[in-house]
């Protein structure tokens, strides 16, 4: 399967998980963000162009299905997060599991505060996520992302070997 198709399926899979979580327990759906995790993991593995494209796609999916009255805020926020993560991953040595966890956690915080800032800039009222729930969200996203990175890394190694 080609990498763009894998990325598209990953985004759709994350949407299905997020949608399912919202029905099982909305509180759980607020604590973990599979769409963001997929964008950050792909940005870490493939660089800034993939990061921003997959980030924008994941953000628009979130906007369209779970967003407020003005769409595109999550799209823009996640595109910028994907770009920053991909840019950093391609130029800095973010190889170890520890650094990946830190990047996934930081990306969650960056996305949350970025979305809140963008919403305020466009005069859209959104609540500010308090520090503790945000930290919990960052931790859960980091753990989920670290678990997803393994299979993706194996696939990348196979691609490079070919």
């Amino acid at each position, binding site marked *: 399967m080609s990498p763009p198709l894998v990325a598209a399926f990953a985004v759709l899979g994350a949407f299905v998980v997020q949608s399912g979580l919202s029905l099982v327990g909305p509180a759980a*759906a607020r604590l973990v963000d599979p769409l963001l995790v997929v964008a950050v993991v792909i940005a870490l593995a493939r660089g800034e162009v993939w990061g921003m494209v997959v980030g924008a796609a994941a953000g628009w999916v979130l906007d369209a299905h779970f967003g407020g009255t003005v769409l595109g805020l999550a799209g823009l926020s996640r595109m910028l997060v994907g770009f920053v993560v991909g840019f950093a991953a391609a130029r800095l040595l973010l190889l170890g599991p520890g650094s990946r966890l830190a990047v996934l956690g930081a990306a969650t915080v960056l996305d949350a505060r970025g979305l809140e800032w963008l919403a305020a800039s466009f005069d859209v009222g959104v609540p500010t996520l308090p520090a503790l729930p945000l930290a919990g969200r960052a931790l859960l996203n980091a753990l989920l992302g670290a678990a997803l990175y393994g299979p993706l890394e194996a696939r990348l190694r196979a691609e490079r070997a070919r």
Partner: protein
Amino acid sequence: MIKVVDTRRSLALLAVLVLGHLVAISRQVEAGGGGTLFDRVLLAALTPLSSGTAAVVRGVSDAWHGYVDLRGVRAENARLREQVAHLELLLQHKQDTVREAERLQALLALREALPLETVSAHVVSRDGTPWFSTLTVDRGSRDGIRLNAPVLSSTGVVGRVTDVGPRAARVQVVLDVNAGIGALIERSRVAGVASGLVRSAEAGRADLRLKYVPALADVVVGDVVVTSGLDRIFPRGLVIGRVTAVGPGSGLFKEVAMAPAARFESLEEVLIATGERPAPPVFDEGVR
């Protein structure tokens, strides 16, 4: 050199995408949000996937509850395991049917009492982010749903439609901080605006507040809050919630907190208004 060219290319792409997003968002802000062709296409494309997920989740949830019940029965009645399991599943199915019938009966009673034409809809997804309180339902413009249509449950007001696709609609629920409903204290007829609390980003919070209530107004804990009809979206007299706390606030207004009447955590079916019900024919005395 290659790295520099790559960086320039990706920065150029970033600039184009950022500009695109800013234009898309600005156009919506200027237009008052909701209802663009792109929104409708995205909503229409994603909803079948979400509906499928909802069906799978319901199936797995039913199977899981059946399994848990079966285990409880097994521990108590080892000899009659097969028979009890069968009866238990049958009973559960019947109970589910009864619960569903009760919910639908309550919705039907509400539908008959309302001065509005309504359609019923299933909830296919709920809050997916901490920033917005929305839900998606499986009815859209083909069923007569329009933008801003009131959405109700048998226990109270749910919200209003903010985006409509052909077979799905997104609903902004009253818990959203951007929501606003013209409201009245039923007992004292004090007016205000019901809206979501900013704190609702804390997972699981489901509070409302009543804004713009004068500092000297007659409001006490336990008062029922109903729609006033002044927002020209919701008909008057529908229950929004109940007052849970009253504080002095700052300046001219009181701080009034409310608990919503609608049970958002377990919402499965809702009623959506499609238009006003035609008034019954008035007969002339001479004709009668």
